[in-house]
């Protein structure tokens, strides 16, 4: 088994644990590279089937190509897709001009919380990775959230020998992170090896490309001439810039992500 085989086997093990343990399970699908790899791994884990719904929390500020791609893929893969918007907040005019962190909290965190409550999810699968950002590097594979989706990060449960947290009071839910141990280059190497269809916003046009996808007003492109997956991998090997440097909300406060994530952000 090579490195990618090992990463894949571990992720499949995690997905199967989640499916076995949680009656109500859903997978968050952000259309980006990580959750697209996650979708592929789910198909592998369950032999071509996706035995749980996919959830897209739509802020209505997403880059338009993302929504178009989402709807096309959902059809192609025959995914049971739940699209949710925080209509209440949108009606009241929520947007990035009210403050980036306020907007993230309302349209993403609260939107997600509404989905969890509405469908009574016990388990939510997310494609976050340790190498993305500091507070994510401290995460568990199975990470408990209380009924308000809050994360008690100063008192996380022990997690050893792949024995995950599967006992918790009713009303709480578990965030399942099957890609926690992957890094950005692993993701691209795997997409290349498995030939996974991926949205073309990641490939350079006119000397610029997206490295991380999010809402249009808060996501910047990077200078790049990478037009193939191999180009992207080579670019990443030399870069000194962090993956989420183009994500404006991260830069708002020294502990922006920790604060957002404590309240239930992805």
């Amino acid at each position, binding site marked *: *088994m*090579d*490195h*990618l*085989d*090992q990463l*894949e*086997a*571990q992720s*499949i*093990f995690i997905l*199967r644990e989640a*499916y*076995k343990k949680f009656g109500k399970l859903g997978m968050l699908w952000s259309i980006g590279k990580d959750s697209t790899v996650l979708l592929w791994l789910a*198909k*592998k*884990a*369950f*032999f*071509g*089937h996706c*035995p749980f719904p996919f959830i897209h929390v739509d802020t209505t500020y997403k880059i338009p190509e993302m929504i178009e791609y989402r709807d096309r893929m959902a059809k192609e893969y025959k995914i049971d897709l739940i699209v949710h918007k925080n209509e209440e907040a949108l009606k009241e005019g929520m947007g990035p001009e009210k403050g980036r962190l306020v907007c993230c909290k309302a349209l993403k965190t609260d939107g997600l919380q509404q989905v969890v409550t509405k469908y009574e999810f016990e388990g939510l699968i997310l494609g976050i990775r*340790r*190498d993305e*950002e*500091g*507070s994510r*590097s*401290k995460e*568990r594979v199975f990470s408990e959230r209380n009924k308000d989706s809050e994360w008690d*990060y*100063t008192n*996380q*449960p*022990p*997690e*050893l*020998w792949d*024995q995950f*947290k599967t*006992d*918790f*009071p009713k009303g709480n839910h578990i965030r399942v992170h099957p890609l926690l*141990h992957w*890094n950005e*280059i*692993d993701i691209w*190497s*795997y997409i290349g*090896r498995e030939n996974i269809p991926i949205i073309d916003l990641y490939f350079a046009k006119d000397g610029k490309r997206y490295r991380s996808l999010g809402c249009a007003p808060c996501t910047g492109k990077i200078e790049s001439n990478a037009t193939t997956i191999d180009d992207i*991998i080579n670019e990443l090997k030399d*870069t*000194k*810039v*962090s*993956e989420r*440097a183009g994500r404006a909300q991260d830069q708002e406060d*020294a*502990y922006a992500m*920790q604060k957002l994530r404590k309240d239930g952000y992805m």
Partner: protein
Amino acid sequence: MDDLREVLKIVVVGHVDHGKSTLIGRLLYDTKSIPEGRIERVKAISKEKGKPFEYAYLLDAFEEEQKQGITIDTTQLQFKTDKRDYVIIDAPGHKEFLKNMISGAANAEAALLIVDANEGIQEQSRRHGYILSLLGIQKVYVIVNKMDLIGYSEGKYNDIKHEMNQFLKSLNVFPLKYIPVSAFLGENIARKSGEMPWYRGESILEAIDLFEKDNGLEDKPLRFPIQDVYKFDNRRIIAGRIESGKLREGDEILISPSNKVTRVKTIEYWPVKKDGNNTLEAGMSVGITVEDEFFNKRGEFISHKDKAPLSADVLRVNLFWMGKSSLVKNRKYKLKLVTQEEECEVLSINRVIDATTLETIENANEVRTNDVAEVTLKTKDRICFDEFRNNQGTGRFVLVDGYDVSGGGIISGVEESRKTVSSFVKNETGLNMNCFDEYFYIMTQNAVRRVESRPKNFGIGDTVPVEGDTYAYPESFDVIDLKNKLAARIRKSRLNDVVSLDDYKYDGSAVLNTQGFAAKVTSQEDCEKLQKDFGRLSGSGEDKEAAFANKWFDIMKYRNIKHKADSEFNNTEYQI
């Protein structure tokens, strides 16, 4: 290609403030493994807080960690050398965060145990050393840090080395190297230090490339614990991860503990695999179909027929406890071992050890948080496993107390003979029996199972439960134990007498065997014939035993069988 590179996971452990996070931060900084954004951010935070730049801030991402200058939770970071890729795991040193330290260390293949040259060996240096030995991590370097604070003194370094060696030796941990460093100043981290010419060994960066990776899991006997069984389409796929060994299409396999034998029909893939490689090996998450479709369930072990795992319900274990409340007897815990989950309780606490001194805590009747102990556990049903020294993956388990994973341990051996049973007792004589057990038809398993009653000794005059959920005996009856030649008389629901079978006289009361099955006897003559028949049985084989039992015993005369759903069965308490 990069995806063929080897990855090694190293945990950094040691006492609080001995410099674990600083060492890792420095290692990442010196190997240019940190994105500029992150370093700039940490510099900005340091400036904002009016503090000098701390390498540790690169890891201690939480606000609370940076403000208090401590590591609360474990982190994993990646960096690479020319030889291979590394995942480096930072573990907190505070005693109160021991569970986070264990979470980090349990994932590692090798360890760096850090000791502050100035402070010397402290409580957590020893406790972490002990935990490493319990986790089975044998590849250990001891790093003597802050050498700058003791003027790079070779003598002091040798004293620490000697003391640490003595301690670790008693745990059967033998450090492969000792390395003197100053993490803050970068001495012997990524480059050889000019300050310690007396040290001829490698810098940390050079030394970690010398750790040899463990291979050979695929050469151990096959262990494939069933994770789940899928029926999404016309295939019935048994899914799980191969913990050790290899499996091929067509192999004859044994499923334990139910002891069913079948063959691997197909190996399933998505997308469908085109090449002809049909060997599965340790580490893979796989799916197979089998020739005979038995009822299979999560937790069962697939192995090859001649190399079955152990199976028992009384286990001798070494464990560490990190629960909110102590580990005690007479309390139910959930044991999780690979994909098995089984209710268990503590049969005996054999020894509780202070992990910082290795001294036995006298007369301990509980295992407190952060203690380590040798304990005998009793699981409700038999489980499958291996001894830890033979197979790490299937020889270790966690204990769940309520909602929380509260302990972890390794299995050192099996005890078969400790099972307690109910008995009728007079003076020193006891007639062991299962008359008050219940029988249920478990619907999900399509099988009849016996549920044991709570073990109890009945003395003369004690009331016995003549009626249960699934049995109803007369008020007065006799129980005979043919094997041990004993008989007990129950009169008006009370134990009246226990006598030798030779002295037993039939008086018209119903006669049962020790299972509560009715003996077909109506006279003293019948009783003697029964005993004679039994005497001729010895060594004559199972077929004759069954014929004998069918001739003489009626299972259903006083008994009944009731339906039970599986989940209900798992939660069944003792009946009395």
